[in-house]
């Protein structure tokens, strides 16, 4: 089963696939198609693992990661730990087209995005706030800390490093809607 053009994406995010395909059908580039397709999921918050209002970190904040790559030129733009900007893949494309860098991260990436005209807004929603408060009520479980005290498997932080380091098997963090 081989034919071109072709759009494939992870998970059953059908609207994103359709958005990308319609860009190709209307003469847009494959870069435009990927950007619009992923942006559709950012707007629709696909399964809670894309876009604002999902996956709050230990401080309750939602931060975004994204990248875009041009297979003809090997140009790449990416953002990580992006705060307060909803359209992460749009900022990733701006990194590719408006800098000679590849990856911008964190607060400074957000400042770059605002300078490039992206709107700063709160990425927290009632849903992410509720997820966060449930987590706090559940003694901050699950979490990604290890070799710290108090014991991260039963209590919240703040944490301090434990004097002794124990090598332990990685805890399986498999939560259906908590993934990259």
């Amino acid at each position: 089963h081989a034919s071109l053009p072709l759009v494939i994406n992870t998970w059953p995010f059908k609207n994103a696939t359709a958005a990308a395909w319609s860009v190709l059908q209307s003469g847009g580039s494959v870069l435009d198609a990927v950007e619009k397709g992923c942006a559709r999921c950012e707007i629709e918050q696909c399964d809670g693992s894309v876009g604002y209002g999902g996956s709050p970190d230990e401080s309750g904040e939602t931060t975004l990661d994204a990248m875009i790559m041009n297979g003809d030129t090997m140009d790449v733009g990416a953002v990580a730990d992006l705060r307060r900007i909803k359209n992460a893949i749009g900022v990733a494309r701006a990194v590719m087209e408006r800098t000679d860098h590849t990856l911008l991260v964190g607060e400074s990436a957000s400042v770059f995005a605002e300078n490039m005209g992206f709107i700063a807004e709160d990425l927290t929603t009632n849903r992410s706030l509720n997820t966060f408060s449930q987590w706090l009520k559940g003694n901050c479980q699950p979490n990604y800390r290890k070799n710290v005290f108090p014991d991260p498997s039963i209590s919240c932080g703040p944490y301090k490093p434990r004097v002794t380091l124990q090598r332990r098997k990685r805890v399986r963090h498999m939560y259906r809607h908590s993934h990259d």
Partner: protein
Amino acid sequence: TIGMIAFSQDGHVAAGTSTNGLMHKVPGRVGDSPIVGAGAYADSSAGAAAATGDGDVMMRFLPSYLAVELMRAGADPSAACETAISRIKRHHSEFFGAIICANTTGHYGAACNKSPGFSKFQYMVRDSKSDTPVLKSVDCI
């Protein structure tokens, strides 16, 4: 997380990802999605791939880059995807993860790592043989 790869009629290729990452992560934590060769990789002379799952583990193996290089060497997309997953499986037998791969002729495939609660991976395909996006799935290895 969404990982997407797109191929035009005349052989242009692009890849992209977007995600809000893992829930309850340590502030400042970055996953594999924005890391070139991990979250996604595209090369119009070989193909493209995009990965999804536990980014802390997957980024250490650059699965998307590996898959594209295997397709460059002639592997079919399904085999390329499976090798990329197997490489990680060797060190993290129960990691949560999946990958989609496609080469420049429009052949495509996917693979995922079987782990408790995850035995089938669903992904979307749209090409000119169907008039709507088609839901595909692959059994995990």
